[in-house]
């Protein structure tokens, strides 16, 4: 077969294909001048942490760009947009005659994409002799590819690419016009004259998330005094994409705008060239599997010989206070605090200064500073979860989100780190989760478990229609604690100490320090 006969045909085909495209002029818009980014939380994330690699929330990005439009038809390509862009949400305004067509192209320039574009066309192949170092270039014609390998035709006949064991390199004459380095958004527009246009590009993009991170510092208080804490919150923003947004206006939205399920974006085509040749693997190329490496075995129990009194090398644990120079405060002092405003039924937090949202980065700006919040420390339990073996009770901090308690601001969902004072300065006492809390809502944060305040619940006797239960709370702390034990079953008769709280029978009791409290109650059987 004559290869050169194909060239003429090919050149003709190319010219035909390039024809309509040549009438459009390509305008590349590189960097935006002004960016606003509004971040929405991942819907339904609950109290799970932000996925740092690819945050599941989204952002509304508004960019201002200035471009020079030529007269006639033009294709404007936007670079530097977020890789998580939802192309269907993109809106472009500011063009003299509007947008004729909006395209997102995901045909990527890649080894595979090149072969695909050059199928039935001519390329050069260069082979290097490893012994002499001489390379030889010849023109060949791609017959098949890129799926499963590449077959090409040379003057000698048909061959498979890289199934030879020789170093082979392909060279392509021209860059295929419709392949791009990254998925890109482009628009088609028309202008009668050449103009400089300032346009606004607005779009939604995935790969962002935010949450509040609270720091609650419990203040020292005298016995009988109302207990208080200082509440501070960070606005924590995560960007999982590869684009940085410099000098941007940043906002965050609390609340749950409705989002519909959205199909996956068109998968970009391209990638590495997968070549499958006739068998040539040798046994030494079969990967060696080292097998499962077991974890380090647990340490052997310390030999009881150490029972001897010689303890020269031991470090004894004793109470020795840390230097007084240690920190006295757990919450930072904020120089910049995000401002809150209402946006319909949502809450908007605006960072008052321009900030840079880095690629693959997490950023924090103060959002709530509320000193002197009144709270109560309550131990809570549900009788059904306990048995005759005593078990620890969880404790919570409870407050009301109103002015009297020192709050009265919307509290967006987030993690609460509770710091409490000790002889060694403020230390972390617990970490709990807070859902979105509006003004006047009750606010409860579960801090931790107390091994000193314990509950056991024993069924003492049973008849056909009654269960006789005994609950015992032991308090090994040296001061009184308030416990609320919920009983979800139907209680027979009126029992002193039990009242209904929010429709649930609750034993609310203050247990003196180093003491116990016992409640006998009867449950009706159905």
């Amino acid at each position, binding site marked *: 077969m004559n290869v050169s006969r194909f060239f003429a045909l090919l050149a003709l085909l190319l010219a035909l294909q390039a024809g309509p495209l040549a009438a459009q002029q390509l305008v590349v818009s590189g960097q935006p001048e002004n960016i606003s980014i509004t971040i929405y939380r991942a819907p339904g994330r609950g109290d799970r942490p932000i996925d740092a690699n690819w945050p599941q929330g989204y952002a509304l990005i508004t960019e201002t760009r200035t471009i020079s439009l030529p007269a006639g038809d033009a294709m404007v390509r936007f670079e530097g947009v977020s890789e998580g862009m939802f192309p269907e949400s993109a809106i472009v305004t500011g063009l003299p005659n509007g947008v004729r067509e909006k395209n997102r192209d995901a045909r990527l320039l890649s080894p595979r994409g090149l072969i695909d574009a050059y199928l039935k066309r001519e390329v050069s192949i260069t082979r290097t002799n490893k012994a002499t170092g001489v390379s030889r270039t010849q023109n060949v014609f791609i017959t098949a590819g890129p799926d499963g390998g590449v077959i090409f035709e040379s003057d000698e006949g048909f061959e498979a690419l890289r199934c030879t064991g020789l170093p082979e390199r392909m060279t392509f004459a*021209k860059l295929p016009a419709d392949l791009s380095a990254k998925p890109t958004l482009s628009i088609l527009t028309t202008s009668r004259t050449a103009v400089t246009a300032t346009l606004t590009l607005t779009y939604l993009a995935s790969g962002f998330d935010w949450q509040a991170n609270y720091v609650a510092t419990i203040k020292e208080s005298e016995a009988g005094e109302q207990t208080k804490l200082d509440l501070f919150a960070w606005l924590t923003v995560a960007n999982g994409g590869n684009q940085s947004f410099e000098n941007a206006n940043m906002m965050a939205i609390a609340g749950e705008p409705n989002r519909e399920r959205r199909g996956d974006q068109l998968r970009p085509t391209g990638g590495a060239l997968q070549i499958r040749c006739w068998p040539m693997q040798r046994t030494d190329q079969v990967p060696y599997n080292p097998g499962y490496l077991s974890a380090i075995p647990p340490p052997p129990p310390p030999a009881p010989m150490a029972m001897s009194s010689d303890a020269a090398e031991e470090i004894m644990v004793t109470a020795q206070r840390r230097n007084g120079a240690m920190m006295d405060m757990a919450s930072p002092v904020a120089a910049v605090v995000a401002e809150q405003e209402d946006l319909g039924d949502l809450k908007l937090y605006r960072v008052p200064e321009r900030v840079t949202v880095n690629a693959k980065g997490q950023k924090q700006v103060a959002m709530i500073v509320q000193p002197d919040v009144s709270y109560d420390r309550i131990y809570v*339990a549900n009788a059904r979860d306990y048995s005759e073996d005593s078990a620890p009770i969880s404790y919570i901090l409870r407050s009301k989100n109103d002015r009297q308690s020192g709050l009265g601001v919307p509290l967006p969902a987030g993690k609460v780190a509770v710091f409490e004072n000790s002889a060694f300065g403020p230390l972390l006492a617990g970490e709990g989760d807070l859902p979105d809390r509006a003004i006047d809502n009750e606010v409860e944060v579960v801090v931790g478990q107390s091994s000193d305040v314990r509950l056991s619940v024993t069924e003492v006797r049973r008849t056909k229609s009654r269960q006789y239960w005994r609950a015992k709370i032991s308090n090994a702390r040296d001061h009184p604690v308030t416990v609320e034990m919920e009983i979800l079953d139907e209680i027979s008769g009126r029992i002193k100490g039990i009242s209904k709280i929010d429709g649930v029978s609750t034993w609310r009791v203050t247990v003196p320090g180093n003491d116990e409290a016992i409640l006998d109650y009867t449950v009706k059987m159905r």
Partner: protein
Amino acid sequence: MRLFGFVGLLLASVATPAISQSVTDESAQGDVSVTIYNNNQALVQDVRSLNLPKGRSKQQFPDVSAQIRAETVTLAGPDIGIVEQNFDFDLLTPAKLMEKAVGQTVTLIRTNPATGAETRVRAEILAANGGVVMKIGDTIEVLRDDGLPVRVIFDRVPPNLRARPTLSITLESAGGRVPTTLSYLTPGLGWKADYVTLFDEAKQTIDVQGWVTLTNNSGTDYRNANILLVAGSPNSGRGRNSYAQWPTGTIDSAGTESNDRERLGDYYLYPLAERTNVANAQQKQVSFLDVTAAPAQKVYEFTNGWLGSSEATSASSVLKFSTSRSGGLGDQLPSGVMRVYMRDKRGDPQFIGESQIEATPMGSSMSIRTGEAFDVKVKTVVEERIRRSSSRWRTKMRYEVTNARPEAATVDLAQTGLWGDVRIEQESQTSERVSADKVEWRVNVPANSSVTVTATFDSRY
């Protein structure tokens, strides 16, 4: 190694032109305090002295935990206000370097495989999608398509790519050298207690040593640090919905005593007396409890399920003692594993069993199940089962308790499954109804003999 140092230098000069950084082996950590909790979590407080310019400045904080929970970072100090905090983890890797070079020109050096001659060309990187597409002169090529050696020389490292995740804080200051406290939470540091208990059966006493085992898998060393251990898990609380762990059954009755041990809210604190180095991937053991000759008693326990009938089965050996101030260990016990040893005839300690214990308040009575007794067994027989009426059954049980030891044994024999309204019509010795569901007999079995207990139950099932 030299290359890394060089890249680090480059990075430092690109990312933070304003801040001079010395590339030395010295850690940037200051006076470090590490507070370690039970649940693989630690609070690191690092007092670093910063020389701050007046007004705003961006400070970087190297040498923090490799697993830092960046959202928990707090910086506090005299006269400083925080503008913003950033944690960036866009790391410099060969793939990232190439990705960021798209659209730029690099130098290629090709080495002839036979002659070793080098040829230099400039190439424009067009795309990096599963292979690097370049433009050399007028033609398009794929980098290293033929597998021959090609060196790629980049003109520069792209900005904002870092060797390690970087924590930086922008702050406002009055200027000057100020001590600041950087605090954050990190997983990867944890501790647990291990107890070594030596039981002296003749004297009926135990010697107990408590050891703290502290592990650092956080990826970072903490040098000359103050270490404080907290017996407690700060986010284990589940509120009133359910509780985190099922009781281990080691606490017979919970104590209500307290002592003067330092506390943090409801947790107990165990500070280490001296500063110490905690290296990454290191396990460290220190002693925190040493009690000798506390009274203890060995008993046997056997629990039979409803209608359970079995061949002679070993009873559990149980060690009972108290954590109370008088006649006990006189301290709280953080959760951990208690290993029990006894001396053999030659006086050497031998391991006889272990049991997990939960955090135990002072003043509790405890029972530790160490294993199954070889010589103390219980055989259970359902002797009679009669349907008395449409709703009642009569069940007669026999329990044969045998003791092959040369000394007397006390066996706590329990029958469960009594479903509340089961009555005992007749029994060979007096029982205690410990709960609606369970009845218990304390059986004293003399040396090398056996005792039979019988009971007749009236039940609905």
